[in-house]
């Protein structure tokens, strides 16, 4: 048994999340990844915005910073700039990171600053009760899309790639044993890294979209996840509604705080 306890603030348990909410599965994967890397708890700063998923840092025994909605990456940028020796991990939701926080997301990717973003994509705003998100698929229902969404959804991994991220991976909580490997890689990567985690919100998304139980949602994730290698051989039609998983981007690029340190060294001498 992996000893999660060593990383938890157990007095805050049980978790605030709903029964069947997948966020806890991803949390556990993250802890296994951190443990494997062997980071000390003191050198980790975990930063989040506002949302169900953004409540995560409250449960883990790191330096934790629960900021304002959408701004986790901006706060994290300040932390990382001030103390580049710290490992800064951002935990955020699809709304937090790509609706109100979309700009910080693409700019941090552009700068390629060494942050790891664990992005909990549940297709919806959980915390506020199920409003439409930039990742809600076209036609799906939400409390502010009662007739089905008329908007296209973001491919948020693709966005990070286009903006300049060095590492992007995607996985679902149905495969926690793969997820932790991706998170490990993301944290190890020097540069801006994103792991997009698909996670079910039975309460505000499932119910509205004919997936009555979390079991149905987990099965949906199981059936719709397609590893990248397989997806490359499929045609666009087959890929509709599918989630392409795997490491999507893995590049070695100059990292921002290192570049800035070079500047300091240059200017000081």
């Amino acid at each position: 048994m992996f000893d999660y306890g060593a990383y938890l603030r157990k007095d805050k348990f049980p978790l605030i999340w709903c029964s069947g909410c997948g966020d806890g599965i991803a949390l556990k994967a993250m802890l296994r990844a951190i443990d494997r890397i062997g980071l000390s708890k003191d050198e980790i700063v975990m930063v989040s915005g506002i949302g169900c998923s953004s409540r995560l840092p409250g449960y883990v025994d790191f330096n934790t910073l629960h900021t304002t909605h959408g701004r986790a990456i901006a706060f994290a940028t300040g932390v990382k700039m001030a103390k580049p020796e710290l490992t800064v991990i951002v935990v955020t939701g699809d709304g937090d990171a790509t609706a109100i926080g979309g700009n910080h997301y693409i700019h941090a990717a552009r700068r390629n600053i060494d942050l790891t973003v664990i992005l909990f994509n549940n297709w919806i705003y959980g915390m506020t009760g199920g409003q439409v998100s930039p990742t809600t698929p076209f036609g799906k229902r939400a409390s502010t899309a009662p007739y089905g969404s008329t908007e296209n959804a973001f491919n948020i991994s693709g966005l990070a790639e286009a903006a300049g991220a060095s590492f992007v991976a995607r996985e679902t909580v149905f495969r926690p044993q793969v997820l932790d490997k991706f998170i490990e890689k993301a944290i190890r990567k020097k540069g801006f890294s994103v792991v997009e985690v698909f996670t079910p919100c039975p309460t505000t998304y499932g119910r509205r979209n004919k997936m009555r139980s979390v079991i149905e949602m987990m099965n949906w994730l199981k059936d719709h996840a397609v590893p990248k290698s397989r997806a490359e051989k499929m045609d666009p039609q087959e890929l509709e509604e599918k989630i392409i998983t795997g490491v999507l981007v893995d590049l070695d690029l100059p990292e921002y705080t290192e570049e800035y340190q070079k500047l300091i060294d240059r200017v000081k001498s």
Partner: protein
Amino acid sequence: MSFRTEIRLSGEGGQGLVLAGKVLAEAAAIYDDKNATQSQSYGPEARGGASRSEVIISDDEIDYPKAVNLDLLLALTQESCSRYWKDLKDDGILLVDSDSVKDIPEGSFKVFKVPIIAIAEQEVGKALVANIVALGIITGLAKVVSEEAVEAAILARVPKGTEELNVKAFKAGLQAAKDLS
């Protein structure tokens, strides 16, 4: 002072207490022509964990819409009972689900223990309608809203196709109340 009744329905998320509160308020306000307010706890509480729905019924305008001195407290879980009983009036009514609430607080209020969830499950056939069973008991015990009003309000609120089930649950509750007196 004018007649004012404060009712709190408590239990956990998913037990339909918000709906029950709304039905009670609508019964009073629309069908019985009284004044009524209803409010509930929001936030994480409202999904899982403790849940609370408050109804105030009055002949007069309702100035202060929060319950502070309960005439009736429904508790479907031990946690909610322990948390809220202190707000009960001296002569108030504490109604608990007898299978869930074992540790009954002491006080001058009246206590009614009814296997509400069991009635829903066994007599009506669906644990989910425990909230409506409870409504029936409350209607019978508190006598602030008429049976007809509550039934009408239930019919107006519940999803099409479930009317019969819900009326059955309501009647089961009314009966349980009668059995108590």
